[in-house]
């Protein structure tokens, strides 16, 4: 009953536009964000950070990026991993080649995102002419081309013979300071700190875009682009902007994936099945939903892990994992079957995915205990 909007009035349009209209939400989110940044940075265990929280930042951000392009602007894309790849390689090369006093890891990420965004614009140009499913050809071309490019021109991997760069500690330094006041830069705690700040900042930016005229232009182009052009919306410019912003986000997500999560720059991470995975996350999370993007990412990422844990638990009597839990191939296959069934069931029940379900749930909560 305390979660309601009765008694909270908006008196001007600024207030009407707030991201969190309910006072409870505003407090909850504010405190929650502070805790989210502070607690894991200070106390987080290496396992939880490295195996769950940090990768979720990366894939969640990638899903958000894809959602901006496909969910909000209606441009289909299967090139997500390719753009992530550009972000990762860009960050690596910037840190590698620029002097220490000029560049550090977060700054390099911010800049490499621009590279990804620009490549996104190039492969977004066909979207001016090509519509619907046919557009997949452009982003798939981007995906395969980017992969081939970095595989072909070993310069970008610094000619590492194994083809995989294990990022050394100094890459995480700020301006050559290897330990800032005793704080280990390469620790997962620091990586989390950077990662979550990026996620929070970029999500805020995305939310602002969506609730302003740019966001409305995106959605107008998605819903009916002929009508949009009669209002004076430049459909080509809007599409290209969507590609730029989306690929920027994917670029940063890719850099986070390599730097914050895996610790390697490896081309194998960014193959086409990664693009599919992000797309699943977006579908399950719901097209056109920012919250949904993260919810979908969490579900798709955690499901195999949860399933393995379940297997271990169920078969614990037979000796735990080694003794007879589900083996990794079975896990992957059953996961795939589960995703497939899940996507279909979800689409039948609620095409808006988790995002819509979450919205419905909050709506019910606002009027609880009354049904409507």
């Amino acid at each position, binding site marked *: 009953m305390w979660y309601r909007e009765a008694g909270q009035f908006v008196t*001007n*349009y*600024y207030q*009407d*536009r707030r991201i969190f209209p309910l006072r409870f939400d505003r407090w909850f989110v504010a405190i929650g964000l502070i805790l989210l940044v502070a607690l894991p940075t200070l106390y987080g265990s290496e396992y939880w950070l490295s195996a769950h929280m940090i990768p979720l930042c990366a894939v969640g951000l990638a899903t958000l990026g894809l959602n901006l392009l496909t969910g909000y602007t209606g441009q289909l894309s299967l090139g997500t991993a390719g753009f992530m790849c550009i972000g990762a390689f860009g960050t690596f090369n910037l840190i590698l080649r620029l002097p220490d006093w000029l560049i550090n890891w977060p700054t390099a990420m911010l800049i490499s995102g621009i590279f990804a965004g620009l490549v996104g614009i190039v492969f977004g140009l066909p979207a001016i002419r090509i519509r619907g499913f046919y557009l997949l050809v452009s982003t798939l071309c981007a995906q395969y081309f980017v992969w081939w490019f970095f595989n072909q021109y070993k310069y970008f991997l610094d000619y590492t013979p194994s083809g995989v760069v294990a990022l050394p500690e100094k890459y995480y330094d700020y301006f050559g300071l290897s330990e800032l006041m005793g704080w280990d830069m390469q620790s997962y705690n620091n990586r989390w700190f950077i990662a979550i700040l990026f996620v929070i900042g970029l999500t*805020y*930016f*995305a939310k*602002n*875009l969506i609730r*302003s*005229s*740019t966001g*409305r*232009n995106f*959605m*107008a182009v*998605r*819903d*009916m682009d*002929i*009508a*949009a*052009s*009669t*209002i*004076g*919306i*430049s459909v080509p410019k809007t599409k290209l*902007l969507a590609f730029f*912003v989306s690929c920027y986000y994917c670029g940063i997500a890719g850099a986070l994936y390599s730097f914050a999560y895996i610790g390697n720059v490896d081309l194998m991470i960014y193959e086409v099945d990664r693009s599919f995975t992000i797309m699943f996350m977006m579908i399950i999370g719901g097209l*056109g939903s920012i919250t949904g993007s993260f919810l979908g990412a969490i579900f798709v990422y955690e499901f195999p892990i949860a399933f393995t844990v379940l297997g271990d638990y169920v078969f614990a009597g037979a000796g735990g994992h080694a003794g007879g839990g589900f083996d990794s191939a079975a896990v992957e296959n059953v996961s795939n079957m589960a995703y497939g069934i899940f996507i279909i069931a979800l689409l039948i029940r609620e095409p808006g995915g988790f995002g819509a379900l979450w919205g419905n749930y909050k709506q019910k909560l606002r009027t609880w205990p009354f049904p409507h």
Partner: protein
Amino acid sequence: MAEPILQINNISLSFGGVKAIENISFNVADGEVCAVVGPNGAGKSSMLNVINGIYTAQEGNITFDGTTHAKMTTSVAAKAGIARTFQNIALFKGMNVVENIMTGRNMMTKTNWMAQGLNLPSAKREEAEHREAVEKIISFLQIEAIRKTQAASLPYGLQKRVELARALAAEPRMLLLDEPMAGMNLEEKQDMSCFILEANREYALTTVLIEHDIGVVMDISDHVVVLDYGKKIGDGTPDEVVNNQDVINAYLGVSHD
């Protein structure tokens, strides 16, 4: 006599071998309500589409507000101040009413996406200003109650009203309405007619509308243009047109008031 705001000069439009519009010319005076009537397939919607640049005519040109355009495109038309509604409602299904109407303010938005993303004060201020303008239109068209409703879930009549609101939000010089009252009952038609007339008078808004209901046409229009099979067969005041023998033969059958 004042220079007409819209001059259609010898427009011809074909699709493949089909001539949709054949050498049509007419003028629309500044501030008047001009009805374009005619049987189905006469080329009325196509005419409107040519005016605001969705179709490109093979021959002829359009003079709007003093400027002659050899080739009209949607962006040129929008910038020149032409707004329109569509026969098969072209609302954005994924947004609610306020958002739909706000899109109409697009041409007057100056802050760029960066400023909006960062939620800078300039962006916030502009958003509030546009919202204020949109709210005026919302109260003018009496759709306050459905502000936050998703456009897709509105009944047909209200959708048409929201589309009109979106067109008005652009503060246009000329309004093109494609069958704004199709599918409405008597009461809804009366409301819509009121809104159109009020907008016309309040904002000195030249209005060109396609309409099938002759009663409505007689009541609200200053000027009527009759099309049939892509050709113009009548052009004048409502009374003149109703008494025009060609028009009676082609369209009206027995004349009635």
